């Protein structure tokens, strides 16, 4: 019964959260955005006191139900572990907690947060890891199905679905997502919740709290006949049936043991006596992230193959039309922050790189950074589109407060960068034609056209930029006819400011 409630809630929660991570239309975030906001690490980084208090209380009352229901990575592991259990029943056995590893990881994690080593933080944050897997691996499939439906809809002259570009946002992130997927899946396949109890820093923190939880599974020694069925079905490997002891720091309150026990010897109840120290059972060979090199290689190969396939699909040029070169990313000295971010530093410290904003960006502007200090955190670039004035979606979805909520009006006066004109690329001068496309599309009127020859007011007109009015939205860069490098591009700022 309890197990079924847990399973139902977990499936519901993880399913909806995944759907929200997949959504590119911007409709689900309004309804489901809270699911990302109640995730532990984003809430901590956003200093979302209400959520933190709620999660602490939840754990102090019910144990680590967070890990079983709210955390999508936990539910994902349960799914893998459940599949593995189909092949081999009663496959777990008790093992000792690897304290040095889990507390070591937690310590490193805290140090990394404080020291601002974000690439390390975002790599192990459970919600972010899951977000990346969905964004990099599942979303392309999701959009692919959507595009198929859109084609059908087009044939039926319906506008219910529209096609959306699938593109490789970042190879490193894809590789990281694949590697995470493989490591977590293999660990879950072999050892259930090994990841959560040895590596995941959130698991360790909540595990520390759940020792003291009010309700927990308790073994009734009078009824227990020591059959060990509970132990062999405990995916956290935390039940020592011989000792009738449960390590509550590792128990994720999945209720499987209660369900399994044929004699009804385990109850989800208040525990009165303190647990006897679990015996030293030396057989902890669970953690085997060892032969990763081969897998990483395979992952890379797969990633490369995927890129090639994507590229081939992208090149679609009709016969009677002029060929259009793809835009190339200009070298920006300062990366561009999304409007709603405060400063580069604040952003780097708060973003958990969950890729929610990247998945949600409808204009193909946000993509994960590849530089080490901002690894996988989003940045803006304008080859595929520009930061459109009516869109505030990334600020709506960010669960960690890295991108603060911003209104359309605020956005239209928030400067994230400024445009720079590059004479040698401007087609007015190179091709000797009239243009002014940047000026026509500037939403703030920051661009004016002036004669290229000061002494000749009738000479071809070139753009000049009033950087005081420029907000760095990239309309000019994106719509500049010069290819592959635009003649006008946006240079980012370290802090966003209101103009």
């Amino acid at each position, binding site marked *: 019964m309890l197990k079924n409630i847990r399973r139902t809630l977990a499936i519901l929660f993880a399913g909806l959260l995944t759907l929200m991570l997949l959504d590119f239309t911007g409709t689900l975030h309004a309804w489901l955005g809270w699911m990302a906001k109640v995730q532990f690490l984003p809430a901590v980084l956003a200093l979302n006191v209400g959520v933190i208090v709620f999660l602490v209380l939840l754990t102090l009352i019910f144990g680590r139900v967070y890990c079983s229901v709210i955390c999508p990575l936990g539910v994902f592991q349960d799914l893998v572990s459940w599949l593995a259990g189909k092949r081999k029943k009663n496959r777990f056995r008790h093992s000792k907690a690897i304290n040095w590893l889990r507390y070591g990881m937690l310590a490193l994690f805290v140090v990394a947060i404080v020291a601002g080593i974000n690439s390390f933080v975002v790599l192990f944050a459970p919600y972010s890891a899951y977000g990346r897997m969905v964004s990099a691996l599942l979303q392309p499939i999701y959009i692919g199905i959507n595009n198929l439906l859109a084609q059908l809809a087009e044939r039926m*002259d*319906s506008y219910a679905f529209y*096609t959306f570009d699938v593109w490789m946002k970042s190879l490193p992130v894809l590789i990281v997502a694949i590697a995470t997927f493989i490591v977590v899946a293999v660990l879950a396949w072999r050892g259930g919740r090994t990841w959560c109890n040895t590596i995941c820093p959130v698991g360790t923190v909540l595990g520390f709290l759940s020792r003291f939880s009010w309700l927990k599974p308790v073994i009734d020694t009078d009824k227990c006949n020591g059959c060990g069925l509970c132990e062999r079905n405990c995916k956290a490997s935390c039940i020592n049936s011989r000792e009738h002891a449960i390590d509550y720091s590792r128990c994720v309150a999945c209720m499987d043991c209660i369900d399994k026990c044929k004699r009804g010897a385990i109850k989800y109840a208040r525990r009165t006596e303190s647990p006897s120290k679990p015996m030293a059972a030396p057989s902890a060979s669970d953690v085997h992230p060892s032969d990763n090199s081969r897998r990483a290689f395979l992952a890379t190969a797969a990633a490369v193959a995927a890129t090639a396939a994507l590229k081939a699909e992208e090149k679609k*040029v*009709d*016969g009677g*039309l002029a060929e259009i070169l793809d835009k190339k990313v200009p070298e920006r000295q300062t990366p561009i922050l999304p409007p709603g971010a405060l400063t580069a530093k604040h952003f780097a410290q708060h973003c958990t790189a969950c890729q929610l904003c990247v998945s949600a960006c409808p204009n193909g502007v946000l993509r994960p950074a590849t530089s080490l200090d901002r690894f996988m955190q989003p940045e803006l670039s304008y080859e595929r589109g520009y930061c459109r004035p009516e869109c505030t979606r990334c600020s709506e979805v960010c669960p960690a407060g890295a991108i603060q909520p911003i209104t359309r009006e605020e956005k239209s006066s928030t400067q994230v960068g400024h445009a720079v004109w590059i004479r040698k690329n401007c087609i007015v001068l190179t091709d000797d034609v*009239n243009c002014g*496309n940047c000026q026509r599309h500037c939403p703030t009127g920051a661009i004016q056209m002036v004669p290229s020859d000061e002494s000749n007011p009738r000479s071809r007109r070139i753009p000049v930029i009033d950087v005081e009015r420029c907000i760095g939205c990239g309309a000019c860069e994106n*719509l500049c006819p010069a290819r592959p490098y635009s003649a006008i591009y946006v240079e980012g700022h370290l802090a966003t400011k209101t103009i």
Partner: protein
Amino acid sequence: MDKNNNNNLTRRSFIKTLGSGVLATAAVMTGCSGKKEQGAITYGGSTEILGEMTYRTHPTSGDKVSILGYGCMRWPQKKVKDENGKEQEIIDQDMVNELVDYAMAHGVNYYDTSPAYLRGKSEQSTGIALKRYPRESYYVATKLSNFSRSTWSREASIKMYHDSMRELQVDYIDYYLLHSLGNDYGNFEQRYVVNGMLDYLQEERREGRIRHLGFSFHGNNEAFDRYLKLHDEGTIHWDFIQIQMNYLDWKNSDAEYLYVQLEKRGIPVVIMEPLLGGRLSRVPDHIVRRLKTREPERSVASWAFRFAGTPKGVLSVLSGMTYMEHLQDNLASYSPLQPLTEEENEFLYDTAELIAKYPTIPCNDCKYCMPCPYGLDIPAILLHYNKCVNEGNIPKSRQDEGYAEMRRAFLVGYDRSVPKLRQADHCIGCNECVGHCPQRIRIPREMQRIDKYVESLKQETL
């Protein structure tokens, strides 16, 4: 137009329809008991061919020309991959042959092409299809084109003329036209007079390799008069002249004047754009209702064809029939032609006034403006805009009833019809296209206007 009703499908009803479609397909696949006696194929009207094709006789040569002429500017295309895996459009020759077979079998004997059409491939394709018939069973018309100044020299022009014969696999051309004479008389002199081409072509006519010499015209009345003056003065005898004529242009762009001038001189008229590139077939709902109420079993397009064919001075009416159903529909309209009565003509002039109220852009999808050097798909943008105008998907303000649906239809349809990189916001206003448009659409201005409109829809600032 026959699909309009589905525009406002919601997601749910879409899935429902999809589901039932799948079921229906499955039922057909397993049941295989579809009705056999479906009657004539109907394409917006009855295609039952009533009798024989109407023919008009050329006053001097005695050619018996079918009133329906085949315009070879819009042959069906198919997509193929070239050796680099890049998708390309080429003419679907099998389909062309099939269309020509059907047309020949039903009496169409006038085929009009040009070395410029379909990226220069139309003549060859037309030649392949016609080569399978005796040379005397069809008349072929082609043109001395003028789109690129590099072809204006005498040598290049003569080469173009000979290339046409080679591509069409003929040793004489029945109807030869100076392509698209316009308002700029200087250009005409440069292109055809100064280089001696006009004399050369008249010589060819004397030799019998050109049976009729004429020109196609896109311009104003004054310019037309100047070209006719050459005829009146005896400088050159025009055997026929090709003009744009339809019930919308009859009064609007003075096709009436052009026609009357030609009739007065007894010069046979070949009609182009009788349907304005389909614009007189894709009309707003209430126009469909108006036309259909009078002739429920005739297509909307049939009115335009009957209009163009009715005047006695018309030798042939060209139609760029891409699809078999277009061909069948036109054959039904012209086999035989039922001339319009005076009252029916008036009815169409009134209809024209109603259509003119709709702010469509007069693009006929001739693609003379293409390729745009900056990669835009100009006709696709204009056609999408016109489609939305006709279907009533151009909201004027956010307060309009059904604003959200109209907005979605416009924006989603826009991305479907035109890839993002080829949309109007990429128009830089270089004006390269302007001179090429026979309808004299100020393309860059329209592009920027549509772009502004799209922006106001996207930003919801309408």
